[in-house]
């Protein structure tokens, strides 16, 4: 039974695309057949983060408009044979997406994949609405800061009213993924605490991804962090999140970045 998952946030720059790539790769590493779909038409980035930017021939808009078949637009990852990408168009804008077109693509993807991860654009406009439209579940990416949390709250309200599932009277299952979490700054009160965020959003937590240079490094070399450095703190956090997504009970811990020579000497199990 295929699951359609939207990765969304409302606010930009919180790590939707990075998280989509990392979660997609982690799912694929566990043997699930995964496609990640970039809905950020006009500002596509998912192809870069996955290192597939030089292999894009056809895109989502071509498929929506019937110019290309879905199989022509899907790009298979070179490292993970279970991971596929459906890129967005960089030359068009979000108006080129149609509700019916997205619906038929999602329906077709459901027959081919176990997981369909939709990378939503920022904002609450057409692109974001269509990315969440057919979702069964949603991952709301939130940074521990008030602006991000309020935008997430807004998006949760929309998930409860604007999706196909909500219109049928069902519930879109929602998860909070906290990214760029700095436990040091949180303990000094410079950031919202996890409890504050969950209190405001009243939605279950899927995982806490620590702020890390590894994430940036992985993005720059075009490799999801879960693939690029699987032992790093953020990679382990993403992998835990994926295991929770698959129904496993995994203790919620805040992975700590191992820094400095002493920590390295003390072994890799310190976290």
């Amino acid at each position, binding site marked *: 039974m295929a699951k359609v998952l939207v990765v969304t946030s409302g606010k930009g720059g919180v790590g939707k695309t990075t998280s989509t790539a990392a979660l997609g790769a982690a799912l694929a590493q566990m043997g699930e057949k995964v496609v990640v779909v970039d809905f950020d038409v006009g500002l596509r980035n998912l192809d870069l983060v996955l290192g597939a930017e030089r292999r894009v021939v056809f895109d989502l808009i071509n498929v929506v408009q019937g110019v290309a078949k879905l199989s022509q637009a899907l790009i298979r990852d070179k490292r993970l044979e279970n991971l596929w990408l459906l890129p967005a168009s960089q030359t068009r804008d979000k108006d080129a997406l149609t509700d019916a077109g997205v619906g038929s693509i999602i329906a077709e993807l459901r027959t081919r994949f176990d997981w369909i991860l939709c990378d939503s654009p920022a904002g609450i406009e057409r692109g974001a609405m269509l990315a969440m439209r057919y979702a069964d579940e949603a991952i709301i990416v939130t940074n521990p800061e008030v602006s991000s949390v309020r935008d997430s709250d807004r998006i949760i309200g929309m998930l409860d009213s604007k999706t196909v599932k909500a219109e049928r009277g069902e519930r879109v299952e929602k998860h909070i993924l906290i990214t760029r979490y700095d436990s040091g700054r949180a303990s000094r009160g410079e950031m919202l605490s996890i409890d504050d965020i969950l209190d405001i959003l*009243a939605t279950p937590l899927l995982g806490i991804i620590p702020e890390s240079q590894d994430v940036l490094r992985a993005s720059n070399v075009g490799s999801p962090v879960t693939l690029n450095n699987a032992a790093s703190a953020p990679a382990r956090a993403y992998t835990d999140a994926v295991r929770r997504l698959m129904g496993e009970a995994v203790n919620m811990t805040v992975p700590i970045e191992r820094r400095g020579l002493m920590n390295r000497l003390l072994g890799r199990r310190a976290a």
Partner: protein
Amino acid sequence: MDAIAKATRQPVRMRGRSYVAFTFGPVVPIAGWLEEIDATLARSPGFFVGRPVVLDLSAVDLSQSAIAHLVASLEQRNIRVLGFENVDAARLTASMPPLLTGGRHCMLAPSEPKKPEAKPKSASLVLHSPVRSGQSIFSEGDVTVLGSVGSGAEIVACGSIHVYGALRGRAMAGFSGNSTARIFCQKIEAELLAIDGYYQTAEEIDVALRNRPAQAWLEGDIMKIAPLN
């Protein structure tokens, strides 16, 4: 035979029933009074359709022929005369509507298109999930939220507002001029509280109240906010 004859005799059944009718009191000159009727008919042509009328002749002294002429004039205008009041029975002929007595005054419903079932709506609204940022809730009665109201969300109620969670957004109670409406919440972090147009923003709310259960009400022109305990 006798018994059968008795059995077949149907007693005449009579029941009392009362009806409401319009009463017209014609005044002299009758021609001028009829013009008034015409003017009323011009404004609302169907006004007298299906409504029989009683003529109260106490203000005029009309002969039998004048009464007959008046009835005919009204019938031309499609107004049926049901009977007469306050006139000497001798002036009425057998073909005219009868003399009525014992009429009592009653209040008539002001106009025909009365609201169908004007029963007060029980418009109070209960929300079982949190109110998210950007949502706007309106109710003509009370609003009860079993959860939090997010920052950037808004609740507008003509009655009171009850929030069984943190109130982080805006709450406007007594919206349509109800100064007795109140706002209750489990945790006050509101951006704005308003009752009947009087409001306080987050800046004006006492810091000592923050994050505590509280209620807000109106005392004259002043909004009071106090902890709930």
